[in-house]
């Protein structure tokens, strides 16, 4: 200030004044232009993100509907192809001519019909169990998963084991069912595609979050593959996992072990209030 005040008026000042004012105006205009351009860029980016989000939601919805349709078709096929013919066969054994036949044949026919009806009952029970596993309903997620892994191990094709470290407080029933379906889907994928020799599941609670981790030593996928598959037209099962996880606000992480020997799939859920 004092320097300016000490400076004597010169004829160059008007020039400085004009140039200074013009420079400031140009600077102001540049700032405004930059701001507007930046905001437009941000708006376009947000619009694209929203579009992508919508597209993914649409794909997940489609996958969910498709899966539901497949499930219905499977049920229809089971009932139509298995239960229907079996009951028709039983009816044949129990036709009107049965009364005209001898005692031994009658007994034989009744026995056969009873056998077929028992098989049909078993078949319907199996269908019902596939819809809602009774172990899950009655004894919870831990028992249902242990049961599933024991069955896999019992088949002799793969060594399967599961261990729940901290499951004193059960998740809500509907949440347990969703988690069980996700585990079923993952295990089914591992059985179909990985050619692994073992599969191991562990459960734990950490920082008020519920964790499930599946290890296997076969071929697997990592997170980037998973994301690619969920965004593509294939990978219906994986899309279904994603939509189920969204339902329970869960996360999933596909990764390879540090030793690069095993693949790991980690499911993370917020732990809810104790099961009533």
């Amino acid at each position, binding site marked *: *200030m004092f320097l*300016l*005040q000490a*400076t*004597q*008026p010169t004829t160059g*000042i*008007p020039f*400085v*004044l004009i140039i*200074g*004012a013009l420079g*400031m*105006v140009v*600077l*102001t205009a540049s*700032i*405004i232009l930059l*701001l*507007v351009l*930046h*905001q*437009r860029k941000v*708006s376009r980016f*947000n619009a694209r993100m929203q579009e992508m*989000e919508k597209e993914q939601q649409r794909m997940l919805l489609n996958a969910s509907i498709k899966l539901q349709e497949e499930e219905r078709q499977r049920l229809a096929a089971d009932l139509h192809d298995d239960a229907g013919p079996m009951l028709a066969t039983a009816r044949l054994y129990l036709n009107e001519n049965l009364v005209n036949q001898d005692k031994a044949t009658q007994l034989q026919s009744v026995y056969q019909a009873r056998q077929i009806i028992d098989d049909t009952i078993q078949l319907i029970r199996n269908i019902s169990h596939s819809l809602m596993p009774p172990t899950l309903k009655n004894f919870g997620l831990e028992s249902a998963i242990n049961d599933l892994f024991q069955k896999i191990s019992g088949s002799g094709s793969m060594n399967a084991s599961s261990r729940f470290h901290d499951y004193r407080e059960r998740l809500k029933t509907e949440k347990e069912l969703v988690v069980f379906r996700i585990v079923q889907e993952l295990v089914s994928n591992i059985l179909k595609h990985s050619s692994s020799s073992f599969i191991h599941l562990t459960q734990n609670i950490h920082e008020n979050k519920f964790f499930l981790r599946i290890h296997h030593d076969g071929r697997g996928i990592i*997170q980037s593959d*998973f*994301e690619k598959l*969920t965004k593509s037209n294939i990978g219906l099962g994986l899309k279904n996992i*994603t939509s189920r*996880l*969204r339902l329970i*606000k*869960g*996360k*999933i992480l596909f990764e390879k072990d540090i030793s690069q020997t095993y693949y790991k799939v980690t499911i993370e859920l917020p732990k809810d209030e104790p099961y009533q």
Partner: protein
Amino acid sequence: MDHLAEKQYYFVYTLLEYVTFTYLLFQNMNSRTVARVVAIISIPLLVFQILYLVYAQPKLLDSVPIGVYTLFMLGYIFYYFYRVLMSQVSVPLYKQYTFWIAIGILTYLSGTFFFYILINHMPKSQIRPYWFITYIFDIIKNLLFVVAVVIFTRSMQNGSNKPVTNHKTPFLDFN
């Protein structure tokens, strides 16, 4: 007007301009912290202006307080722009009345900055032809304020005088 009255007139004018512009710029920000910081910054500025009024003997205008206030105002405007850039606002900038106020103030202050700074170093005969610079920027500022008022009135009629923010980004499971 005698010299003292003139000094007092410029003192009040500069102070009023600073207070009005600062109020217009921050009144829509809804941040107590920002309001407090601006108030705290303004106190030493006011003290400085009073000292200048008492001790300095400017030839024509109180250039130094004007310059200091302008620099601080420019700082406030850049802070406002920073907030605009950081916010998740879906309404375009040109549809926000505060944006027009900010660029009105920015244009006026930046356009007249050099004139007010140099005015005391120019002979009176040279000053007169250059007053038009302040008039031009004053008119531009007023026009931009008119745009701001029109936008504000329209948004009030539409029942949305506050910028609409985006909904929170949906929870993404996989980042």
